[in-house]
């Protein structure tokens, strides 16, 4: 059990790391055993083979590039799309949360687009943007923009009306109420949205790179599929998983820094 009363040689932090490592090692052992000793071995390459191939991919190129380049180009695509999604998502979310008029205009449109999975846009995006990077930005953008908007909208809707009243009482005009109260008080919600969105955007990259591309982690997987190379597919999956894990941790670290005031709820 992990709690503060545990009388142990390890601190809680150390314990959490130890348990995480144990869990990962168990997963690898089960994977290895299943792949080697059951009929699944036809479709599932053993863990040792995948990990070896994964580490080798940093030195030996898959296709024309090494893994670092594939990850880099995919990250670049996500970053561009994510930037657009952040700006538009926050503007739309705060606007809808604050202004009834804005809400009436954009909410129905937004609610219509929201449930459509990003992959459904692939055919259209090829027609509209051809095979350039723009089409990939478009797919990734759709994959993450909704999460940012929804969360920001929630945050702007949930601003304590007493705080807005207090600001008005102190002499703030509507513009000041918006920028000094509504926006900052939505920041924790916005960050929750960004955190989901960055992972969602990173998973949309595979779909986006299904559109004609010659590089990127998505391409590694698609390429592996068309050549029947299961090891290469798994290598791509492992790369996506690891990068996704790092991204999620980076955003939550950033949130802890920027929203320090929110650590304990003030009354």
């Amino acid at each position, binding site marked *: 059990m992990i709690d503060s009363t545990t009388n142990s040689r390890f601190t809680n932090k150390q314990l959490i790391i130890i348990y995480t490592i144990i869990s990962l090692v168990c997963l690898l052992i089960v994977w290895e055993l299943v792949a080697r000793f059951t009929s699944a071995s036809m479709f599932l390459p053993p863990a040792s083979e995948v990990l070896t191939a994964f580490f080798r991919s940093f030195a030996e190129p898959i296709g024309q590039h090494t893994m670092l380049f594939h990850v880099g180009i995919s990250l670049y695509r996500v970053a561009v799309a994510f930037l657009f999604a952040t700006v538009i998502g926050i503007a739309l979310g705060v606007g809808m949360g604050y202004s009834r008029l804005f809400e009436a205009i954009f909410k129905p449109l937004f609610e219509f687009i929201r449930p459509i999975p990003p992959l459904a846009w692939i055919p259209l995006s090829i027609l509209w943007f051809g095979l350039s990077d723009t089409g990939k930005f478009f797919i990734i953008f759709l994959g993450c923009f909704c999460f940012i908007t929804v969360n920001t909208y929630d945050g702007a809707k949930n601003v*304590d009306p*007493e*705080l807005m*009243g*207090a*600001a*008005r*009482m*102190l*002499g*703030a*005009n509507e513009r*000041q109420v918006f920028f*000094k*109260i509504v926006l*900052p*008080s939505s*920041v924790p919600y916005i960050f929750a949205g960004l955190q989901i969105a960055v992972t969602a955007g990173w998973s949309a990259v595979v779909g986006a790179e299904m559109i004609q591309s010659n590089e990127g982690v998505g391409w590694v997987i698609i390429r592996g599929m068309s050549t029947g190379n299961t090891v290469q597919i798994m290598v791509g999956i492992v790369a996506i998983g690891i990068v996704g894990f790092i991204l999620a941790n980076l955003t939550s670290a950033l949130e802890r820094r920027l929203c*320090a*005031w*929110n*650590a*304990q*709820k*003030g*009354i």
Partner: protein
Amino acid sequence: MERSEGNIKKKNPVLECRNVGRSFDSYDGKGKNEVLRGMNFEVYENEFLVLFGAGQCGKTTLLNILAGLDMPTEGEVYANGEKVSGPAPERGFVYQKTSLFPWMTVEDNVGFGPKVRHLPEKECKERIRKYLDLVGLTGFEKSYPSQLSGGMRQRVGIARAYANEPDIMFMDEPFGHLDAQTRYMMEEELQRIWQQEKRTVIFVTNNIEEALFLADRIILLTNCPTHIKQEYSITMQRPRDYVDPEFLRLRQLITDNMDLTL
């Protein structure tokens, strides 16, 4: 310090409440719930007025209307002769929940009013210093509200309202959330602050001791629809003693007159 009736200038009221009533639509939307009815009273300069009544009797609704945060459905409120039509920095508000801006430091909270009104930088700084000193929080400028205790947060709330140098201060059960010990201390602090920086204060409470300890005048309110039952001028010498015979007599008198049914 002796404060007799004569100290209060009866002639020009700072705030006038004229026949104010407030109804809300009932839940099914068909009927009306009347919360306030026929409120008539004046508040004079530098007077400490306590609106006293049992819980849930519309005291906060009344205070919001007086401050301009809510509009009456009947009657008018006049501040310095002008009709109140919305919130204004000439009126300061201290909230029960303190309602400090949690993402701002103490000094940014206190300086919020002067800053949004574009007072000169130097003036803002001076007011932050002055009013933090007044409430005894010098040294906590860079703290966030979540790092302060309940009593300290309410001190910030009082300093924030004072920093705009309003004509009238509204206080909505500001010590309602505090534990008994902190509450006694804050009542004494508020009395000290008020005597140091005189303002007209309208203070809402459901605690008779608090009312008697602080008030120049107590208005006793009845339950829904709320109207004025009785007014009491409190002329006891300050600082007051909770077990003074006169204090206890008034306490008994007012409590007996309270309307405890809902």
